[in-house]
């Protein structure tokens, strides 16, 4: 957007010290020892070190929940907004400021329950930003209530005899909503997480990574079935390479939403990797095109002259 052009932008600094883990680390995390979220934070530091965006152009946002404490632990511009609404807030940052790199962190309650509507609509609008959902299948900050992803039968303080409501299917929901980059990972798989988050950050559109991140306090062992070190399996999605080989026919076409939906329907613990990746114009691009068209019609006029002519039509 043109008016976002900074009025008093700092002149390009001569030589900047590179971003390091030290310069991007914020407050010491307040999570419980053993929480899966530590690994996600470490991966985010690693990613920023690798991407080397200008320090002041990185934005780290969150809503409410254990995982949403994330921005305090990252030393970038950022915000801790209200429960469930970090996505539209961050979408506005992305839409009005092309110069910024916007990352949003949150949990399953924030993303799939109180903020479910915003998730669907931000995906539909394809706003350029990266959303990392640290899914622990339980409300942790409020000390063990059923979450929208808690499995049937899960015993919590709000379901003492076991959860009775069908849990949401995160990958299926995202595919249906029109998100253009959808991936799933596991907090114990650091290299895989890094790869997923890097691809998400580089995606031109709304990118989501769901990371199974264990709550050792209220749902220990929740994700053991997908953790090889705990005797589980971590099955990866094999993406189509378009190399013409016979085995390629059996690989997953990330642009095929129906295929992604089929993967999302596999029984627990399902598969990991990129479910869906496609290109369609972002809202950033479409709004920018509207602005360009409108600006062309008023070419050469100052803001005052444009408003003046609106008044003149009402004389």
């Amino acid at each position, binding site marked *: 957007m043109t008016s976002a052009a900074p009025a008093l932008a700092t002149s390009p600094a001569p030589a900047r010290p590179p971003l390091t883990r030290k310069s991007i680390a914020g407050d010491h995390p307040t999570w419980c020892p053993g929480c899966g979220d530590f690994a996600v934070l470490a991966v985010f530091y690693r990613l920023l070190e690798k991407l080397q965006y200008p320090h002041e152009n990185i934005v780290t946002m969150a809503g409410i929940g254990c995982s949403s404490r994330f921005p305090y632990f990252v030393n970038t511009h950022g915000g801790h907004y209200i429960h469930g609404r970090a996505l539209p807030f961050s979408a506005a940052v992305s839409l009005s400021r092309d110069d910024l790199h916007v990352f949003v962190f949150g949990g399953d309650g924030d993303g799939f329950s109180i903020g479910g509507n915003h998730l669907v609509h931000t995906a539909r609008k394809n706003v350029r930003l990266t959303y990392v959902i640290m899914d622990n299948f339980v409300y942790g900050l409020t000390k063990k209530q059923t979450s929208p992803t808690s499995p049937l039968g899960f015993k919590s303080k709000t379901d003492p005899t076991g959860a009775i409501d069908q849990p949401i299917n995160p990958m299926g929901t995202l595919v249906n909503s029109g998100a253009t980059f959808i991936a799933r990972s596991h907090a114990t798989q650091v290299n895989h997480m890094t790869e997923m988050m890097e691809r998400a950050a580089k995606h031109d559109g709304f990118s989501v990574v769901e990371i199974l991140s264990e709550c050792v306090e209220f749902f220990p062992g929740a994700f053991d079935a997908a953790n090889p070190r705990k005797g589980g399996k971590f099955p990866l999605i094999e993406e189509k390479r378009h190399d013409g080989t016979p085995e390629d026919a059996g690989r997953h076409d990330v642009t095929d939403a129906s295929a992604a939906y089929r993967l999302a329907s596999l029984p627990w613990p399902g598969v990991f990797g990129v479910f869906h990746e496609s290109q369609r114009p972002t809202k950033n691009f479409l709004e920018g095109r509207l602005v360009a068209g409108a600006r062309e019609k008023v070419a050469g006029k100052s803001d005052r002259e444009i408003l003046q002519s609106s*008044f003149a039509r009402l004389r």
Partner: protein
Amino acid sequence: MVTPASTPAATGDGLSAASPRSIHDAVIRLAGDSQDGIQTIGGFLARLAGRSDQEVMTYMTIPSTISGGPSIFQVRMGTGDILTAGDQTDLLVAFYQHSYESHRDSLRPGGVLIYDTDHVKPDPADRRFHAIGVPVSSLTIEAAGGSAKGKGKNIFVLGLLARIFDLDVAKLAALVRERFGGRSEDIVRNAMVAFDAGYAYPADHVRDCFFRFASGPGESTHGRPQVTMDGNLALTYGLIAAGVRYGAGYPITPWSSIMETLRSDLPKYGGTFVQAEDELGAVAYALGFAYSGHLAVTGSSGPGLSLKMEALGWAVMSEMPLIVINVQRGGPSTGLPTNVEQSDLLQAIYGSHGDTPRVVLAPKNVEDCFYVALEAGRLAREFSTPVIVLTDQAIATRIEAFDEPDLAGLMVDPRPDLSERGADFKPFPLDRITRHAPPGSRIASGRYPTVTGLEHDEFGHPTGSPDLHAKMTAKRREKIKAVADTLPATAVHGDAEGEVLLVGWGSTWGSIREAVNRLRAGGLKAGQVHLRNLHPQPPDLGAIFARYRHVLVVEMNDEGLYGYGQLATLLRARWALPSIHSLTKTDGLNFKVSEVVEGVTDRLRRNGSA
């Protein structure tokens, strides 16, 4: 204007059916169905008045049904001070039987009733009016061709009114051309055929009721051309002048037209307006724009404002500048979506959980909508705070003419301040007003801020410290208190001391002013104070109140459990004066001048002083 029902002949400034005469102003009510285009011709009349340097005010009702349904448009135009759309009608145009039956009692005795003989059979026993039957439908079809199917009736009536009131035909024709000319020359030609048919009609049939507006002060006194628009549009242009380039909203009546105009106009200025998925998303987008360094707006009407309340608490806590528009309508809940009420005041001031001091303003008329938006922008920036503007359905939809603003000195630079912040930068300093550093700003210390809804220290770190919560709460309170120090002295209209002071806010300004003028003409020492700054209040109110025996607060909301309307409750709490009383009503309609006058008389009688 009030004439006993038994006396058909009118006296005074109003219309009389007796003979052609000079008048100062006229109240014309067009009653039909919403698809008849009566808003269109009402708008033509209003704009004609504006172009002729006359005063004008309109009033309209729209059914909240999706399409069709009875609808009226009332125009009061003339050369005097037009402060209200008129308690009674001088001329009624009834398109249908239901229009006639519902609205004939709004016509003052001796007034002119024009009815479409193709649809209306008037009550022969009702001799109160000068009734003129005109076959509007058949004459329109005859003039514009058989296929017209009722279209063009409105323009026929416009022609009729132009003849009756000796209106400027060249100016009206220009307005018709501007309105329809964009589509095709045929439409303009058909419209003018219908107009001419209407204009030609009265020469033979209604010769005895021609009127002419007395000439006004003349165009030279204004210096600037007049513009004619409704309050929502004036507010929207005020936002643009104030530097708003980004915003978000969700459709709701009667707020929607503001977001529609912003959606289509902001891209011309390089900005954008997002239609969000819901009200919570809308305020979140607006705050995201604000966080990014822009002066942003969100808005809604009653129910939508309730939904935004949690986020407004965040805006107070994070000290984010933001403009929030609430076009009030009848509540609670879905209430009366297309009627007026002023019952959201306490919500605007206190509606969020926790202690959330913020600024609340209200415009008094259409012109003031433009300037209030500028003031909201100034306060939001200067004090880094959310500012709520309480307008209402009446002011949003009525049309007035006013002097075109001189934009040269008013336009505010919209660009975000991304300058580098010094090493001593604190996002929430205790000893001065917060200046948000948007992303993209370098911070010399290398420590970047997290803006937050958690209680925090000066650097934005969450804290549970009792001492810091007390200090930060005080900081947020003192900042808003300081706004009051910047307010100009409160203006008093009428007597500077005396028997009664009428206090109002928002769209009731004109009715209260006309009532005060009428009371003073009757010998009562009366004054008017109209509050634009509802929170914080101007500090000089107590001294003004003390100069009157009675202070009567006039507002369109309920008297509540303790007998006081919402502003009256606040004023009693603030000034603890037993002379403060309340005049409230909840019929979803504007205060009539007579209702205010009667309210004052009643108050004085009850206090034994009249």
